[in-house]
């Protein structure tokens, strides 16, 4: 595929996601400046997000939103970007979500950990069912690389989840790669942790939100790279 066509496709998808998902996106409600350091050196950029919430009955609601970020690495010609539109529906103890995304970096784990990859488009879906403090769910992700090779990747992730001093989730990843995962989320979501052991190796990510300051600190470690970042929300 010609580079110009590839870029056009990515831009077209991003535009579609924005147009399809934005309902009243007159202004973005959350903006942030990410500063990160990783294998590509220092990266800076801008993140934007917009979300609307609509009640569904007394015990349910629906969230629709868009979001994304653009970062530029030091000494790199091309910027890294990732944009998505999502919808989440919660009805009692049942929740499901759908996300369409595209970009030139991988789907964020916990939050933004920019790592360059082939331009791609994809979809992520999740179904969750709780029974009080325990529950289970199924997540799935498919991703198509917008390149000459056109590589297709997918994963199906069943998981169990329970709440005890936070939310714990144990998952298995099936599909293009096989592995296990553990994630933890502190009750007020100030601390998030994700550990995954997949075919590519071990990866760990941690995210800490400072409640007194508009800052989020993150650190990620995979077999190939380590990364730290600060996001300043304004």
């Amino acid at each position, binding site marked *: 595929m010609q580079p110009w066509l590839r870029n056009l496709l990515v831009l077209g998808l991003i535009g579609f996601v924005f147009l399809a998902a934005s309902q009243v996106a007159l202004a973005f409600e959350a903006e942030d400046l990410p500063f990160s350091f990783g294998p590509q050196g220092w990266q800076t950029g801008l993140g934007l997000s917009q979300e609307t919430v609509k009640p569904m*009955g*007394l*015990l349910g609601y629906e969230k629709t939103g868009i979001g994304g970020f653009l970062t530029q690495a030091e000494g790199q010609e091309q910027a890294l970007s990732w944009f998505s539109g999502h919808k989440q529906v*919660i009805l009692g*103890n049942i929740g499901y979500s759908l996300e369409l995304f595209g970009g030139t970096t991988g789907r964020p784990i916990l939050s933004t950990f920019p790592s360059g990859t082939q331009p791609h488009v994809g979809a992520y879906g999740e179904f*969750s069912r*709780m029974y009080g403090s325990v529950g289970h769910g199924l997540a799935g992700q498919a991703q198509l690389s917008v390149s000459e090779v056109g590589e297709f990747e997918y994963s199906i992730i069943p998981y169990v989840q329970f709440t005890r001093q936070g939310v714990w989730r144990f998952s298995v990843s099936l599909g293009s790669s096989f592995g296990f995962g553990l994630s933890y989320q502190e*009750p*007020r979501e100030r601390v998030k942790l994700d550990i995954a052991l997949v075919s590519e190796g071990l990866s760990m990510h941690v995210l800490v939100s400072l409640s007194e300051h508009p800052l989020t600190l993150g650190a990620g470690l995979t077999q190939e790279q380590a990364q730290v970042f600060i996001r300043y929300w304004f």
Partner: protein
Amino acid sequence: MKYRLGLSAALIVFLTALISCSALASAEDSPTKTIQLNLNQPQVEEEPDNFSEKYQQVMQEITISEEAAAVVDQIKAAVEDLKDLAVDINITEIRERRNEEVVLHLMVSIEHKLARIEFNEPSAVRGMILVANQAEMQVHIFQPVTNVIVVRGLEDASKEALVALSIGQDLTQLTSYFDFSQYNVDILEKVELEGGVTDYLLQVDAPEEEIWYVRVRDDSWFPHEISVYEGEVLQGTMRLSNVELDPGLSVEEITCLPDAKIEKM
């Protein structure tokens, strides 16, 4: 009471109405403690109409024995004097040969204008906690599926409930849930229990061809079972157990929620 719409629905609306009523005054505010609805509509002076006359006419047509009338009055008095209440509620609704069961724990403080529902069954709502604060006009709903506490306006939440239940047209009925004095009431059964307690089974001829069978004991005069029939067909049953009348609920007892992120809608 619109049992046709479901006992569970009626209960939720009853709760919502309870805490929505700004006139659920404390004993200091009103010696008679009547329940009034504040529907956030501008108050207008009552226009003279023949409603009272018709009401009296209807009341005269009601036949009720002295004993039944005494029981009905006792039930009404028990509810009117309440400051707060804690009760386990089990609602079984029969829908097309299926029994749908809702189990919840209800705590209401009229004094603090607070209410709390903890859902235990069905599993689709198990673990959910709803706290309604009429003073702040807010509802806090703990959602286990996202481990988030959603905060909504009480007025909006009430509308959602009422719209869902399609009974917004006749809210005045909510005040008469345990007031059976406007219906024909018969005592079908009197059973002497241990400890000198008498258990009454009342038959209430409700409107729209509904018949309610109400069980109440004379130790509390708070109904502990209400079965609703439409003709010969059982529609559902609501059982009230572990009833605590005026247990002195604190604000903290009613409003405490799991430690979770708060999201305002």
